């Protein structure tokens, strides 16, 4: 197990966002996390990526305890996350966005996967070829999402945490995104995915983890999980 989360708990004041979650993620897989709004999916990412310190519980990464380490250190160890809001350095050029990430991030080598020689190569890979001189903030939303993935890739991750990468994208853009995400495990990059698009999740993910009120209520292959009465109850409510 590359990433092992045990008994992770996070409270904000009196609100329990995560009430002891256990998840483990392998590096050559795509794992999905689903759950209704407010079930703690993004909080899980934030705690793993070092944005928030957990109240209790442990996060092990390749055997090392990384619980509560600052975000930049976790990123340099190879866990890189993207943001729900399609974040970028808006006032900088697209190429500079990617170059900044490639100058930081995980510097040492690892699994056999392509080494990017220039920011433009990464841009071409995510489908932004020729847009390097564009100002990031002036790009349409779909391209900003691609740029978010390019920036994360440039930081040389072993595990990508993608927070709602398909939100706000058109059908075509989602298809292209799925094609892109499917390539990551083959490149030795593990993917942990949050999204509400069930088609995307059930197509891409080998395993789904379902959260509700900060607790894991189901885990397993999409076919089983999505037909689990506990899961359908959470999404559709009880029978009257």
């Amino acid at each position, binding site marked *: 197990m590359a990433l092992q989360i045990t008994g992770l708990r996070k409270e904000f004041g009196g609100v329990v966002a995560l009430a002891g979650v256990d998840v483990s993620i392998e590096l050559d897989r795509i794992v999905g996390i689903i759950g209704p709004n407010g079930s703690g999916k993004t909080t899980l990412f934030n705690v793993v990526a*070092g*944005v928030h310190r957990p109240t209790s519980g442990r996060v092990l990464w390749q055997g090392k305890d990384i619980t509560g380490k*600052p*975000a*930049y*250190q976790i*990123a*340099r160890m190879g866990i*890189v996350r993207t*943001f729900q809001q399609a*974040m*970028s*350095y*808006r*006032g*900088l050029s697209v*190429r*500079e966005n990617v*170059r*900044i*990430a490639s*100058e*930081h*991030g995980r510097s040492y080598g690892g699994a056999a996967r*392509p080494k990017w*020689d*220039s*920011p*433009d*190569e990464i*841009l*071409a*890979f995510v489908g932004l*070829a*020729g847009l*390097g*001189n564009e100002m990031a903030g002036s790009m349409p939303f779909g391209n900003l999402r691609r740029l978010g993935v390019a*920036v*994360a890739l*440039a*930081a040389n991750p072993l595990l990508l945490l993608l927070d709602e990468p398909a939100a706000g994208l058109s059908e*075509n853009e*989602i*298809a*292209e995104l*799925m*094609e892109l995400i*499917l390539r990551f495990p083959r490149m030795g990059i593990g993917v942990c995915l949050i999204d509400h698009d*069930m*088609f995307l999740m*059930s*197509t891409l993910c080998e395993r789904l983890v379902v959260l509700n009120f900060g607790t894991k209520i189901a885990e397993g292959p*999409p076919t089983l999980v*999505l*037909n689990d*009465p506990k899961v*359908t109850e959470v*999404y*559709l409510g009880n*029978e009257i």
Partner: protein
Amino acid sequence: MNETPHFPEPAPPVGRRRDIASERPVTPPAVQSEAKGRSGWVKLPSREETVVAIVAVVFLVGFPWCNPGYRFLSLAITTGFTSIALYGLGLQFGQAGIMSVGHAAFLGIGAYTAAIMAGRFGLGFWVALPFSALFSAVIAGLIGLPSLRVGGQHYIIITFCFCALLNIALTNGGSFTGAATGLDVGSIDPIFGINFDQLRNAYYLVVAVLLISLLVTYLITNSSYGRTLRAIRENEALARAVGINTGLHKIGALMVSGAFAGVAGVLQAYYLRHISPALYGPFPSLYLALMVMLGGARLLYGPLAGAIIVSFLPEILKLDPIDSRIAYGVGLLVVILLLPGGVSAGLLDIYRWLLSKRRR
């Protein structure tokens, strides 16, 4: 529960919406010209940048030959050391995005360090220059620590408070700081037989340091470190998410900025020969902020342009101090509304517009 759940059939063939199998080529297109310099440590100046640099150097070095007279030459010296401090402020505000409205405090630390070193320990200008720079940098780093917890406007208020606090400390420092009267400073020890009591030589000393500040600013802005600072300015959360130790680099930027201000303070002290707390209060600080915003903090010549405009315009237009303050206020509003990047960015935009018109 008879209803089928509201989920799509799991695991349909991958190519439902479009032909996903059509592989996009992974090989990059021909690398564009801008990406060529990536192996280099710093981007080399373009032809236009070189031309502007030569014009700027000729202008700065040639100024005393234009027979400016005592008044304008001394004004030029003042503008010179002010610009040096502004290059520090330009770096922390323009690149790292941390504004300060108490920046004169760091000039004050540099100036008072030099004056106390001279008065108490008999250490002259050439010793004071590096030491004051270092000391200002350390203090700027310490004052920067709260910036790790509070950002934006909150930190601006902290800088303002520090400036006011330093002023009170200097005024009540007894004979150590000379209280409200301040301290006297001697003259700069001659080096290579150059006597800096001559105004023209003092001007060249300031211009030499100014050119070094310009060079340092250029090197920082166009290197990986400059990009790191811009990443922090544009999006701190994203910067951390790709592995940037934002706290370390913010303090670093503030320390570099403090060092610039310290150097400027020493030059100011040895030029004025007398320093007092009033020079380093909130008002001079606001002037520094005004100059850097008016000139533009992000472009290389912005701070210099801001300093020249604010120092020389009232003199040329013969405005009295009250009128000039009103003019600055109006000028700042106009710049913020019409030229958010400052005068330098405005000029660059005009240049690019003319260029695009000629190409058409």
